[in-house]
């Protein structure tokens, strides 16, 4: 049963019936799945094409813009050793030639329409997006539909793009001390799970890709049934769905990604310590505690704990490390938002001359204290308010809304779950937080990378 639609939207069942009238091909027939209200003004609706393509719509007329996201359930976890970085390289290749558009035309058409087109790849997903003036939506649908099925992969493009990616790797990893440290952390925190290799790939693997690798990857993973489209912003829902039907309805729904289950990571029973010597002016500590998956109920408590420890200038660790003791210039924490269990990452950027052993002792003391005493009521309230502020910020633009919805759909299997996230934080009690901290933030569950100054 549909929620009450805003005045500019029709009832979805009626809409679907009209769109399906006279459509014989099963792949091109729409099904309305459900909707979900967000406040009084916005409604997220879920539709599915016969070929398995999921489409989520969120009409928001606050600005004359539209955001079009295509999320594929493929990331670096779906690669294999020796072929790491293929998902990311492939993301680059998707901006090249198709059977209908010569090389360079995709970007020319997008930019000429005023659209910003880009993409991102991580462990569990790859997504492509366009933020555009509202009138450009038909072009976005046509070009995205086209490259989902008609990409042309040839030697010159693959060679040139491999060089670009090799340069990107140098930029983000080889010459970047934080990038290098993160690579070392994940490579050692995981021993079996594919999260151990970097999304950008090992340099030798990047150099070794062939056109055949790319074609095979495309055939395996780029199919309507492995994708979700999110359309957010100022658009006519009926016209948009009609265009999606036209440009995607002809695609077969049979191609399905192979999904071998990744090897389960064995439990970690002792701390692992690694050292990275780098030409850096200050020492740093990077710690990765084994954390639950994004959808695990404990994650909400850890996100609130992260806010108590690292969120803003009044947080416990910022105050202690950066203001009271002046050991560090900055500290930060985050939980990897992965489908499978990931890491709770913590960074301590030491000041010159400060000792990492002192920093580590302080960190352990504070984590133990949080685990035994829990947060104060005001700290919990503060953390929730800050998380609410961050959430609202992330939803300010059409692009922000589409990104959040696409991410939740792909990682948590429900785009509408984004609207429930705040409620899940509000339900976290001091006891939940204490329990989660004690369970996950134990030294024996962590991998530590010590970044030391290399003598010049």
């Amino acid at each position, binding site marked *: 049963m549909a929620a009450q639609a805003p005045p500019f939207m029709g009832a979805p069942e009626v809409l679907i019936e009209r769109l399906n009238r006279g459509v014989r091909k099963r792949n091109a027939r729409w099904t309305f799945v459900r909707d979900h209200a967000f406040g009084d003004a916005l409604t997220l609706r879920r539709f599915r094409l016969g070929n398995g393509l999921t489409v989520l719509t969120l009409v928001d007329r606050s600005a004359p813009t539209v955001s079009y996201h295509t999320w594929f359930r493929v990331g670096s976890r779906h690669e294999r050793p020796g072929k790491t970085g293929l998902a990311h390289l492939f993301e680059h290749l998707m901006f090249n030639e198709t059977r209908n558009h010569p090389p*360079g035309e995709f970007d020319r058409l997008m930019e000429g329409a005023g659209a910003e087109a880009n993409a991102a790849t991580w462990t569990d997903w790859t997504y492509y997006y366009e933020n555009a003036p509202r009138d450009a939506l038909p072009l976005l649908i046509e070009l995205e539909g086209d490259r989902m099925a008609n990409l042309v992969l040839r030697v010159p493009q693959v060679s040139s793009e491999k060089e670009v990616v090799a340069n990107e790797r140098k930029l983000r990893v080889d010459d970047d001390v934080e990038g290098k440290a993160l690579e070392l952390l994940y490579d050692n925190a995981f021993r079996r799970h594919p999260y151990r290799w970097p999304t950008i790939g090992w340099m030798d693997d990047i150099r070794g890709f062939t056109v055949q690798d790319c074609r095979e990857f495309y055939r395996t993973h780029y199919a309507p049934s492995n994708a979700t489209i999110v359309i957010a912003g100022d658009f006519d829902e009926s016209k948009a769905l009609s265009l999606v039907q036209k440009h995607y309805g002809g695609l077969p729904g049979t191609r399905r990604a192979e999904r071998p289950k990744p090897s389960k990571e064995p439990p970690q029973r002792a701390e692992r310590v690694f050292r990275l010597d780098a030409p850096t002016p200050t020492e740093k500590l990077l710690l990765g505690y084994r954390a639950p998956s994004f959808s695990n109920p404990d994650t909400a408590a850890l996100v609130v704990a992260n806010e108590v420890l690292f969120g803003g200038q009044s947080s416990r660790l910022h105050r202690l490390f950066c203001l009271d003791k002046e050991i560090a210039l900055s500290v930060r924490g985050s939980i990897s938002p992965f489908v499978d269990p990931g890491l709770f990452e913590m960074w301590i950027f030491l000041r*010159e001359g400060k000792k990492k052993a002192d920093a580590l002792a302080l960190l352990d003391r504070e984590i133990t204290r949080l685990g035994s005493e829990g947060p104060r009521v005001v700290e919990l309230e503060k953390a929730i308010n800050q998380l609410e502020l961050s959430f*609202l910020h992330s939803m300010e633009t059409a692009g922000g809304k589409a990104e959040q919805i696409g991410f939740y759909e792909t990682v948590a299997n429900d785009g509408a779950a984004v609207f429930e996230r705040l409620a899940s934080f509000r339900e976290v009690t001091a006891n939940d937080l204490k329990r989660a901290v004690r369970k996950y933030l134990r030294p024996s569950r962590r991998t530590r990378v010590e970044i030391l100054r290399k003598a010049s």
Partner: protein
Amino acid sequence: MNVFVESSDVLPLVDVEIALAVGSLQDPAGREGLAQLTGHLMRRGPRGLSHQRFEHRLASLGARISVQVSMRSTRVRATVLRRNLEPVLELLASLVWRPALRVTDFAKLKRQAQAALTARLDDDQTLGALGFRQALFGEHPYGRTLSGHADSLSRIGIQQVESFYSRNIAKSSFLVGVAGDVSEAEASALIASHLPNPKRRKQKDPVVPATRVRSGRHVIIVDKPERTQTQLFIGTLGARTRDRNLFPLIVSNTAFGGTFSGRLMQEVRAVRGWSYGAYSRLLHAKQRDAWYMSTAPAAEYSADCAALQLDLLERWVDRGIKKAELSFAQRYLINSHCFDRDTPSKRLEARLDVELLGIPRNYVEKYDQLVARVSRQEANDATRARISTRDLTIVVVATASQVVGAFERLPGVKSLQIVPFDRA
């Protein structure tokens, strides 16, 4: 009181901004970083509330406050959950007009600022960008960094901060803007009841001498060990804000290096795969600011990439852009302009820029027409008039031993200097 309001009830979120026409251009010579240090010390909270209690109160209200200092402005911004607007507004006002400016906070802040200068050495792109501005503008105020340098910070004491605050902020005129889930009437009433009378001394615009460019092509290598890649900046002077060539130059630069489809990106990345990014940027200010290209090629072909960029630059300036490139750039600029105003806070910023920075009102209100009316002739004439191919600053962050010979051999290089990265 003139309050700038941009209302939107889509999200229960409000931005409030107090903007003052004071920035790093008011830093005294030798005490660069003073304006920013003053702004950051104000940010530590008002009188009667310790820094810790201030931060705690702010976070409890679901608010964030930032103080952003630029060459010509100081902007104190709060973002807050709608339900807590009033108490945050009160905090914001007391922060600006009753700051504690405590000696203990100052000492900590100064040590933090010095540590931040050290930590910045990790970031090659920032090193390149700062090195480029300093090399291009030399002693001119546009060459100063907002955060100063180790020596200039060491010369700043709490007295200088207090005096800078009294002279430039305490009694100076200011602008107020509110964006988000609040009506114009409500915003005006709240501002009137919490902020002081805005009829104050108008800040005198600092006198900024004309910028000058060194004659010839000069290479500066910022030498950093173990670089597999380089950060490359090549540029010269650009335009003034009130330059009649500004819009023709914006269009021409967009065609050259402002988009993914532009010549620079196509030749450097799409054809050769030499750099992940390749863009040109045109900055404008009261006096001529910078125009530059930035790329990040691998060390082994960094000089080849620089040579290619110089060649592309010469072709752009000498032969101009084609008709198709002109119309593409115009369509891109006009169509994508909606993203400069797709949130209430962006719309507010544009209005405050007009009032605060002296940006002509029609640049905002008639942007599309100003772009659309540029002819190919005007675009190419403006490029030739403003962009020099002879007087260029080339800054590359690299391991000097790997690239020095090749950069020396670039056409027209008049001088080459190697600067250690921790002394750049």
